[in-house]
């Protein structure tokens, strides 16, 4: 298995429909200040994807595996995240 999207299929998620636990604070920072689009790279679950047409980072929070890298890794402090509600989000079966 090579592709990240295939790997993410192995993760058990309990989806908390419609409740985003990750937010980009200010999309204009992503569009104007951030050249590296670092989150698009360092996120192990590929949650962040820069969309050039819309000039914004699309956030697939449903794929998040809750590592905590985003709020530390974003050089502009532009991502906030918190734990999904108790019992929701990624649930490892093996660990």
């Amino acid at each position, binding site marked *: 298995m090579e592709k990240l999207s295939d790997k993410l299929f192995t993760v058990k998620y309990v989806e908390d429909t419609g409740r985003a636990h990750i937010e980009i604070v200010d999309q204009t920072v992503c569009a104007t200040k951030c050249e590296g689009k670092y989150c698009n790279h360092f996120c*192990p679950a590929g949650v962040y994807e820069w969309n050039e047409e819309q000039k914004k980072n699309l956030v697939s929070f449903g794929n998040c595996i809750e*590592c*905590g890298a*985003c709020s530390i*890794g974003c050089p502009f402090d532009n991502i906030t995240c918190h734990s999904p509600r108790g019992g929701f989000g990624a649930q490892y079966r093996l660990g």
Partner: protein
Amino acid sequence: MADEEKFDAVVVGAGPAGSAAAITMAKAGLQVALLERGQKPGSKNVMGGILYNHYLEEIVGEAWKEAPLERPIIEERRWMMTQDAYIGLDYKNLRNRAKPHSFSVLRARFDPWFAEQAEKAGAMVVPETVVDRLIVKNNRVVGVATGRGDDLYAEVVVVCEGIGLGTGLLEKTAINGQPLRRKLRPNEVAMAAKEIMQLEPRLIEERFNCEPGEGCTIECFGDSTMGMSGFMFIYTNKDTLSVGGGALLSEFNATLRSPNQLLEHFKNHPSVKPLLRGAETVEYLGHLIPEGGYRGIPKVYGPGYLVCGDAAMLSNPVHREGSNLAMESGRLAGETVVHAKETGDFSERRLAEYRGRLDHSWIMADMKKYDKAVPLLEHNPQMLTKYPQVADRALDEFFRVDGTSKWDKQSKILKMIRKEGALRMGWDTFKALWAMK
């Protein structure tokens, strides 16, 4: 809330630190609640992972033998890698059979068992419960507010939430206007990814040269992390392999590489690929590892709270140790709270005993010893890129039989080392030894 409903301690997070603290306190008869945000303990928890039974035995006694561990580690392999070669140090000790000291482990299997020991000792284990914030009254932590809308009050809150997701509890709580922990920096954490790959036990044993039920570790430096400060690993479980590794988050930012790219790079190394052939990925995981060293440790006690394990940045990445520092710090925090209960004194001064216990333990000795190890590799990438290549070429010359006399080979190797900067290499070796003195 009535006084009799107040706990002696609320523990946040049922990982190795939290369960160790809860067991220690519950065994002494304290009223303990152990809160866990996952569906069950372990659902959110990730490590490499190797677990050390010495610390487990200190906490649960002989019962450690019933813990759901994977394989005892009989052999340790360390590989220094270049693009198409590795130089290995293999250490196999058959005495480990009679007296193993480390085991491979899958945390979603181990953590529920460990939390169950806390429950057996009398602690109340509450899964599916996120702690939203610490409740502070008169500049003292007096309890926790949960996502269920309940407030739980306690004499002491033991924070074992791990490295945290987003703004951690300590970061968002202030006492006297000061947050209890500052925000972590990208060069203080390693970003690690892992795959659990299913493989028949018979094949694991054949490929890794193990007897049935026994295990092996391979930890790889150099090209395995594409020269970034970190390492990759393969650990043998019962019927799976844990394949993963990571590097400082700051280095992912500097190189714009992704954790999955790193993982694939490692899996496709010519020395790794045959070991994984036919193994099917059954779970993909990602996690941050604290690598801030001694200087990165936040204040671990304060009015009404203690901090253990990853939340306290206690880990020794050079020796891939973490769960043992978590268990030991959890136990020491538990003992501190038990002593506070015995003396009826939960003041900050009494809780400061925890820091004293840590300072007098091997934990802080090791944290100090390796304080500079991670920055050293971060600032000297040649140690993980150029030097393995020099060693690779020297060994290639040494082993290759090609009609050259051994004298000529020897002088060729020496010339090469001189050309690559013998002085610099000597100095770097000295720096590496000095950093870990």
